[in-house]
């Protein structure tokens, strides 16, 4: 039950990041990418591809005028990362960073591709794409680094020392 709530919170936060008045880069980061990158690197399996479809539908509902292309884009990213995780053994923060970059690039490009047959071409500005890929990669790399710190274990060790 925790995961859906966290996903919903991530989507809402994404919505807030794109609100008018914020910095330009804040709207370019793809926060839900962490729910695609993380499970694939941690061995979540194909189940998370279908969850990515749900994430994409939520993305479309909150951020897009048309429901459908977002779900295609997020599930396509999940499929690619699933395959990538099967051939990449690294699970370090660098892998999280790289997976985040791949996920962002796939989501943006596939979303544009899915819009093309509908007669709704949305041109890709390569600077925005690069920026989005960079900040999303940083976001995923940050999460990976934090996770690598294993903070709960350190917290438990510190409490144990304090109690002694």
């Amino acid at each position: 039950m925790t995961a859906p709530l966290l996903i919903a919170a991530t989507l809402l936060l994404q919505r807030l990041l794109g609100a008018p008045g914020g910095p330009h880069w804040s709207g370019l980061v793809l926060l839900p990418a962490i729910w695609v990158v993380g499970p694939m690197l941690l061995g979540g399996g194909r189940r998370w591809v279908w969850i990515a479809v749900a994430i994409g539908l939520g993305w479309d509902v909150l951020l897009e005028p048309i429901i459908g292309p977002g779900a295609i884009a997020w599930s396509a990213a999940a499929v690619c990362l699933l395959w990538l995780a099967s051939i990449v053994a690294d699970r370090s923060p660098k892998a999280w960073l790289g997976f985040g970059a791949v996920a962002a690039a796939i989501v943006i490009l596939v979303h544009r591709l899915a819009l093309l047959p509908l007669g709704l071409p949305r041109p890709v500005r390569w600077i925005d794409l690069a920026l989005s890929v960079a900040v999303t990669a940083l976001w995923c790399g940050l999460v990976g680094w934090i996770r690598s710190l294993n903070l709960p274990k350190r917290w438990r060790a510190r409490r144990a020392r304090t109690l002694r």
Partner: protein
Amino acid sequence: MTEVRPFLLRITLVWLVLELLAATQAVTPEGERVAWRWARAALQPLALATSGIGSAVADLVGAVRDGGQLLVDNRRMAVAIEELRMRNALFREDLAALREGSELLESVGRLETATVIGRCVFRDPIRGRMEVRVATRVTIPKDTPVLGAGGLAGRVVETRGGSVWVQLLTHPAAATAVQTSNGSLQALATGTGRPDRVDIQYVPRAADLLQGEAFVTSGADGIYPAGIPVASVVSIRESAGAFLEVHAAPAVEFARLRAVLLLPDIVKGPRPGGWR
């Protein structure tokens, strides 16, 4: 690997469904739903193909019908051509008969009586009869002599309107009084039932007769005028009786007769001057 394929197939199908879902929401600049445009684009070739097939079938049916009509017309024309050919052949035959009749008239130009030309419409030399069509209102009396190219053909035995039936010399019941050209020998030519032969009877054994000798009518029978060529001797044999057995070939070729002359008013019987 076997599990990957169904998974990829499923996710691809989901993507298609999602794209269709998006198409139902997207609107073209003309205000039309994208999904509707897609459906129309997908159905248009089918409709065009159906229309094309229908038109092709209609053309095929029309072609078959036209072909059938052509065959019927062709058949009708072939029949018409055949009929025209037959008419042409008949006209040729009529023309030849007219020429023959004209020559025949010229050959007997010294006749003092009116002659009637007749067209042979039916010949049966085996049975010794012939039907002749005449273009005259005068009733042709029975026993009227009938001449063909070369000599005597026979006599009229029946008259039916515009046509007469002629008993040929070769009829088994026909008998013609004949004599040699110089009148030294009198005899009787009788039909044999064969188109190429008559028998000369009552020729005495002592008669001076040679092969190729011509016999003409003598007029002794009261039917034919004297002097008309009848036959020429083909063979002479002695028999057990008192007379020679003489076979002769008719002067007229019955199988090729086209036109004949009928002499209704001619003076019958012996004539001092002969035929010609």
